[in-house]
């Protein structure tokens, strides 16, 4: 599913996390000649500070950063014998979740805690500082669950649960 944040009025061709490293393949480039002959010309890409071509791929010329966030249109131009053709790619560089934190950072629960007992409030930090708009999953699934941004017990605890437990909260794609 594409992310909720996107360019005004249009779907992008590609949604790119803002931490993609240099050299990441953004798109495969296909060039055909009008007469069916083999393309032996040159490829170029714009914006040159962000993308370049490697073989028949459009790749990142540098790593993306949160400062690159937003919608953009990238171009690849194929030129041969003075004739050129350009294809465009509408991209949206999207923020990523980078940190999941709990309040309180540790918890203590009695071994008779009822199902639905609050354990901690979860906060997610995005790479660009924007509010997190996704969903959260908690594990072990039978023991804990998410109630909005609250980590709660999924069932009543028993003496068999006594001891240190590790609960994991993961942002959903």
């Amino acid at each position, binding site marked *: 599913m594409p992310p909720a944040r996107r360019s005004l009025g249009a779907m992008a061709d590609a949604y790119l996390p803002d931490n993609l490293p240099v050299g990441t393949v953004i798109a495969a480039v296909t060039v055909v000649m009008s007469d069916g002959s083999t393309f032996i010309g040159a490829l170029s890409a714009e914006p040159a500070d962000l993308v370049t071509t490697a073989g028949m791929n459009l790749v990142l010329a540098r790593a993306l950063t949160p400062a690159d966030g937003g919608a953009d249109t990238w171009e690849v131009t194929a030129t041969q014998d003075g*004739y050129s053709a350009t294809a465009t790619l509408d991209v949206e560089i999207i923020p990523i979740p980078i940190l999941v934190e709990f309040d309180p950072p540790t918890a203590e629960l009695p071994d008779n805690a009822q199902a639905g007992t609050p354990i901690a409030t979860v906060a997610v930090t995005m790479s660009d500082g924007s509010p997190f708009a996704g969903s959260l999953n908690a594990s072990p699934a039978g023991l804990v669950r998410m109630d909005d941004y609250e980590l709660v017990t999924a069932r009543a*605890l028993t003496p068999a649960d006594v001891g240190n437990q590790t609960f994991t909260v993961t942002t959903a794609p």
Partner: protein
Amino acid sequence: MPELIVSAVYRDLRNNHEGALGIYFTVGARDVWVTHLARLVIAGNTQPHDVVIARPVVRREGGPNSPAAQFRDSRREGISPPIEADDVILGRVTIETAGISAGWFAWAELPQPVLLQAGISYAIGSIETNGGDWWGDGTFAGGNAGLIIEYSTDFFNQMCAFTAPGDPNFYTEPTGNAWVPPNFFYQFEAPEQPPHPIVDLDPATHAPATAAGNLTARVFARPIGVALDPATFPRVEISSR
């Protein structure tokens, strides 16, 4: 091959403008292909001039509500179809005037033929330099009255006028007048083109990024009952004598 302009008569020669000067015209009932662009050579011309053919946005001299603009709009209304705000240069060549006899057009072939669609208005302009080569201010006659349904001249103040929608520097002179003028060869049949590339992009997919955090919780046992086991004490008997 037919030309847009076949003759020109000038009232004056000038060289007092920096930017593009040319002709605004509307294509008739048939699409045409433009293969070459030209500029008329005036005696003494030596400089190269870029000639461009473009589909301009409508610009109005003196603002959209000026009397001049209203007059020009009313004159244009019903003649030219609305022009979208997608002002684009369709073709561009560099014309060498040095060595060309005065009174002749100097020509250059476009890198690719340009299609002009029926009923759509276009502009062709020659880039001039203030104080540079002389250019003509006069009248001209077209080569095919059925092709072009309106002749007029346009003034593009600067090259940016082609690429900056909303630029106010655009106006027309009475039909049949021209500056410079530029010219073009056209044909009705699509010209054969040498092999040219067609490019396509297939975007790669990138896994959505996720983040995770761990919380350590201690589940503690709690006292669930309290039992008292009373102590026993030796019985002490006290007797009295």
